[in-house]
């Protein structure tokens, strides 16, 4: 059992997870985040098609939702809309039951930007206190909450060190501690693992699971689909400004990669007639993806390709992953959607 698996199974032993549930806990009938049919267009570009169209997303307490999709799909735009940083042309967003345009609703929200947004000349502790104060906490409460947040992030040893002198992974954990110090109902993490080494990234995954165990709802954007598969309860796939599917990783894999092997074929010659006939789709020049029931079926297909004169460079086959399922889901989507 990996550390991530342990954390997924429950709060990891020895971790100080006793600081209580989020203070801004949603009412029994409300959700930490409830996005209903929102449309967003950038104000400077009124004639252009909307950047987000009819997006709906609901997130429950104590859950992790991974927002995935290609660059330009609208993930960051959706986060900005939730944070009231962009005008929403239509639709509604509720944060823990309150309308998102109510400044007080933002107390239910914690945001950790992709690049750690910290004041480098302040220590880790001072940074977390500073952001707690920004979210309206009184100084004594902010100091107490900052200690708890640093403890939850296992940052006690770094508390008195200046943020500017710390490594990327530690800074990212301080970044997250600053986002959850006021114990919001929803914590937004924008690509928290970007630019981190695998070990630091693993640590971020543990942090997410700890937060979930604490009762926080987490919305994270990520391109690391393996990690999303490990930790997320719900995957929200965005493409062309629309949210095209929301489901658990298991459901997505079952629906879009049922059984067999996921196959990737690279060819120098571009004639894919044979592959199209076998249910494969082109994912770039000379790159085809599809499914096969067995290795024998792949060998048979390779022989046919060679006989037909195709110059095969590479054939890969593996058990289907979430990445395969999402690739298949995205490939099934019409590509005429506007890209922001």
């Amino acid at each position, binding site marked *: 059992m990996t550390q991530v698996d342990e954390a997924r199974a429950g709060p990891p032993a020895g971790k100080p997870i006793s600081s209580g549930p989020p203070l801004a806990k949603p009412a029994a009938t409300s959700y930490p985040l409830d996005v209903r049919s929102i449309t967003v267009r950038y104000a400077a570009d009124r004639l252009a098609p909307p950047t987000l169209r009819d997006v709906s997303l609901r997130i429950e307490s104590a859950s992790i939702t991974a927002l995935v999709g290609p660059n330009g799909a609208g993930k960051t735009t959706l986060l900005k809309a939730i944070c009231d940083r962009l005008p929403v042309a239509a639709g509604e967003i509720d944060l823990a039951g309150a309308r998102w345009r109510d*400044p007080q609703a933002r107390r239910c929200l914690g945001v950790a930007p992709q690049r750690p947004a910290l004041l480098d000349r302040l220590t880790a502790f001072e940074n977390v206190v500073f952001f707690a104060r920004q979210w*309206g906490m009184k100084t004594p409460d902010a100091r107490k909450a900052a200690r708890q947040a640093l403890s939850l992030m296992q940052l006690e040893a770094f508390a008195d060190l200046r943020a500017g002198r710390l490594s990327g992974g530690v800074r990212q954990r301080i970044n997250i501690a600053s986002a959850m110090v006021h114990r919001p109902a929803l914590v937004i993490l924008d690509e928290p693992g970007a630019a981190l080494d695998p070990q630091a990234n693993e640590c971020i995954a543990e942090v997410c699971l700890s937060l979930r165990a604490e009762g926080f709802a987490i919305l994270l954007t990520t391109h690391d689909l393996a990690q999303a598969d490990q930790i997320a309860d719900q995957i929200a796939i965005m493409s062309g400004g629309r949210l095209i599917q929301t489901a658990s990783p298991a459901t997505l894999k079952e629906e879009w990669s049922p059984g067999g092997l996921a196959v990737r074929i690279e060819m120098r010659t571009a004639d894919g007639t044979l592959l199209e006939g076998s249910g494969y789709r082109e994912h770039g020049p000379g790159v085809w993806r599809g499914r096969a029931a067995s290795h024998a079926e792949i060998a048979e297909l390779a022989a046919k390709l060679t006989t037909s004169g195709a110059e095969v460079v590479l054939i890969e086959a593996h058990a289907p992953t979430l990445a395969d399922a999402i690739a298949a889901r995205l490939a099934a989507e019409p590509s005429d959607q506007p890209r922001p």
Partner: protein
Amino acid sequence: MLWAMTLGLWRDRAAFALTFLLPVFIYAIFAAVFASAAGGDFSVRIALYVDADPVAEALALGLQQSPQIAGVTRVPTVEGLEDEVRSGRVAAGLAILRPDQTAAPRFQIFAEATREAPAVVLESALARLAPDAASEEAAARVFVNPVNVDAPMAAYYAAGVAMLFLILSGFQTALALHEERDAGVIERIAASPSGIHPLIDARFIFIALQGVAQIGVILVAAAVIFGVDLGYAPLALALASIGAAIGAAGLTLAITTLCRSRAQAHAVGTVVALILAAIGGSMAPKFLMPPQIAAIGDWTPNGLGIDAFGAALWAGGGAEAALAPTGLLVAMGLALLAVAHIAGARALSANA
């Protein structure tokens, strides 16, 4: 390589302007400001009191036609003469007295200690008309300053340098807003319940408090090193310090938030601070400047600040005299704070 660099400079209009146009602009300002100070043609505006006497009147008429006299304001009493000089409306004052009509006229030249050069010019003009008047017995020099007559320029430059560094260090502190934006801190704060406006207010208050402390340090240094008397009008000194700090805080924040990047704000801030120092009197007193530039300088934070400090440190007048420039500085600072809020909300969170 050279071709690519030349093309790059030509297409980067901001860099091009900074390299070739700005130096010409700065040169023109500094040359205009300091040409007079360095000994160019120098004429002064004076106030004149004349005893009712034909000889005294004849001297007054001759003086009015002197090329060294730019203009004359007649006043009915000697006290009025002192007021005119102290207020700065004229550079120097002259009383032509002839109580004994059988004797030669006597002269009193009224000067403000930080503006002694005009008194020298007036003496020179007088000597051409009446060579005997140049003697110390005939022409007495009277300083109108109620305080710091012995160290007038040390007092003046305490105010001038304080204004220059209030603005320079204000820009330096305001630049942190761009650093915070680049680090993503502004984006994060923009998502908080209060948004970024409290951040701008806090920065404004911080720059103002830092400014008051900075003025305090400079004044203490002036007192300790040069013996500048700070006790003449403490209330005026306090008012001037607060007004100057608020004005500088608003100015530096507004310009910083109007700039798109830290580099731009740094360059613009430095240039603005130097120009304001030159025309506002931080580098050389305004009476040395051409009248048009001096008139503009009167409305700069440096000019207003120096006027406000003057009420406490050399020209006198106390809190009453300091009120008007202090009020203008505070109004300027608050108006520019409003500009900073508008510009900051748009520019600082543009990437958020």
